[in-house]
């Protein structure tokens, strides 16, 4: 069988079960694709060829012994800002250029317990700061659809790797759109779960009150499968909720009642939204309208225009605090200087890229004496109003639909020096983070230039099941459809 790397999780699981191929063969197919394409895409910081083949052999034994689980023997990749035991985890910053964690993040441990094969660690914006993957200290990731364009960010390497079939699925991290936006720009599925649904333990913290870990996959069904495995309460993350996790993959086509879907008018009136993106999303909504189980209503979320300014106070503030521990003292790369202060200042100056330093400084300023009330506290109050906005709307509708990104993949370098323009790339995705809501991006079409456009579905808190159900309606998995996510 050729092109094993193009399989979805479901297809790979079936093939392994029927012994049509082995995990070693599947892993080799992915490694071959990485060898062929990674020099162009720069999607990986580390590739664990030897270790992956060892893990694949173990998986084959497990399958042979009749102990196959859903992810046994399936190659996956992980954003480099998530800790993986005994595997380099740099967060795409030189300050952690040599950092090898002694533990797996909880979600990674859950996946590896099933015998999945960790094939490599993905390039990303350093510490998750960015929407274009240009803030990596290991060079930008290129978009598989057009090598002159960005892959999105911050989980850009993971999105590019999944879209280009270098692995079967990936795990990323989303604080303000970092899973959904690159998924949209690369033409795959990306889920940000509700805050508290998945453990954040071992995901290098950015903004502790908004960070989430989630899957990037080729189909909605695959995303549902991974999510139901990695979700759940974790004693190592006190913010995880102790709620039962539904079998999302089993209820994908089981809509219990008619879905009322809200389309926020503000999102379509926004200046700077690409015409083609708007047209693709509007025609997708018109298509959904024809389904007798769906009712489309116009809604208003007047406070969401404040989500980006709230985000750019809360996130840098929590960032500046969290990154205080990254100082080259106990681990990482230390730059020695005459005294302790200079050692800190030099280590951090040389180990962090420009955007990380920018955020640390915004946060330090916003939290400093005399400014806390004016910035952080004010933002946290507006955050309450944004949540109330969503609560009001979700009393009327089941789900909300928007574009994922205001534009398809842009040229590398195009927005790099315009800090504000780059921040606005997350205008549709970041309100979900501010409010802690689950949201998914699914491919909705392509521009004339052949660049993917994603549709964004936001659900109420812990409402992943319905989010998946609508997503499945948007891109039902027709036979063979999973083989080509584009």
């Amino acid at each position: 069988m050729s092109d094993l790397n193009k399989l979805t999780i479901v297809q790979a699981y079936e093939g392994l079960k029927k012994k049509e191929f082995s995990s070693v063969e599947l892993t080799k197919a992915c490694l071959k694709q990485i060898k062929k394409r990674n020099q162009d895409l720069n999607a990986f910081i580390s590739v664990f060829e030897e270790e992956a083949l060892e893990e694949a052999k173990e998986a084959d034994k497990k399958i042979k012994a009749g102990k196959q689980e859903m992810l046994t023997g399936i190659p996956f990749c992980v954003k480099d800002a998530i800790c993986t035991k005994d595997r380099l985890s740099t967060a795409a910053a030189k300050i952690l250029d040599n950092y090898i964690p002694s533990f797996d993040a909880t979600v990674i441990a859950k996946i590896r317990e099933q015998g999945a094969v960790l094939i490599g660690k993905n390039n990303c914006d350093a510490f998750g700061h960015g929407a274009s993957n240009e803030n990596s200290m290991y060079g930008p990731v290129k978009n598989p659809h057009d090598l002159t364009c960005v892959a999105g960010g911050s989980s850009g390497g993971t999105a590019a790797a999944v879209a280009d079939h270098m692995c079967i699925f990936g795990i990323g991290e989303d604080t303000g759109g970092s899973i959904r936006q690159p998924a949209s720009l690369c033409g795959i599925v990306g889920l940000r779960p509700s805050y508290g649904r998945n453990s954040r333990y071992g995901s290098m913290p950015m903004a502790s009150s908004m960070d989430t870990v989630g899957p990037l996959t080729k189909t909605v069904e695959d995303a549902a499968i991974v999510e139901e495995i990695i979700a759940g309460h974790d004693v190592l993350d006190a913010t995880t909720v102790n709620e039962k996790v539904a079998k999302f993959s089993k209820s994908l086509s089981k809509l219990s009642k008619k879905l009322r879907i809200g389309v926020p008018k503000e999102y379509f009136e926004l200046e700077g939204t690409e015409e083609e993106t708007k047209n693709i999303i509007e025609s997708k909504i018109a298509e959904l309208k024809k389904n007798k189980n769906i009712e489309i209503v116009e809604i208003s979320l007047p406070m969401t225009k404040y989500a980006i300014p709230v985000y750019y106070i809360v996130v840098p503030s929590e960032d500046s605090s969290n990154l205080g521990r990254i100082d080259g003292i106990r681990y990482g790369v230390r730059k020695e200087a005459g005294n302790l202060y200079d050692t800190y200042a030099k280590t951090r100056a040389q180990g962090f890229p420009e955007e990380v330093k920018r955020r640390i400084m915004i946060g330090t300023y916003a939290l400093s004496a005399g400014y806390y009330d004016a910035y952080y506290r004010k933002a946290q109050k507006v955050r309450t109003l944004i949540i109330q906005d969503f609560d009001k709307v979700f009393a009327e509708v089941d789900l909300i639909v928007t574009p994922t990104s205001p534009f398809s993949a842009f040229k590398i370098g195009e927005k790099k020096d315009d800090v504000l323009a780059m921040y606005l790339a997350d205008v549709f995705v970041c309100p979900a983070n501010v409010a802690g809501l689950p949201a998914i991006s699914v491919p909705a079409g392509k521009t004339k230039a052949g660049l993917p456009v994603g549709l964004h579905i936001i659900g109420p808190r812990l409402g992943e099941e319905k989010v998946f159900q609508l997503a499945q309606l948007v891109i039902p998995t027709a036979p063979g459809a999973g083989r080509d996510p584009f």
Partner: protein
Amino acid sequence: MKLSVKEIEKIATLARLELSEPEKQMYADQLSVVLDYIEMLNDVDTSGVIETCQVTGLEDVVREDKAQEASEEIKNKLIASFPEKMGKLLKVKAVFDDQT
């Protein structure tokens, strides 16, 4: 809100970041733009609004205050990742003769 180079120097000191002269100017300009943008929050009336610190609704999540012994393997890995060491000890610059 226009930040001066002097203010940037103060922030950078608090944040433990060494900046070059061109960087100071660049960040002064960029942070000013971001702070101007953030100013739009002042349009929102937040009187009487309680701030949101977390969204889960969870309260007082506690565990027993008990140290857990790490395995020798973990200990050795942690020591191996020290940037500088003496035997099993982490080596750092003196804390109290620091001028700042």
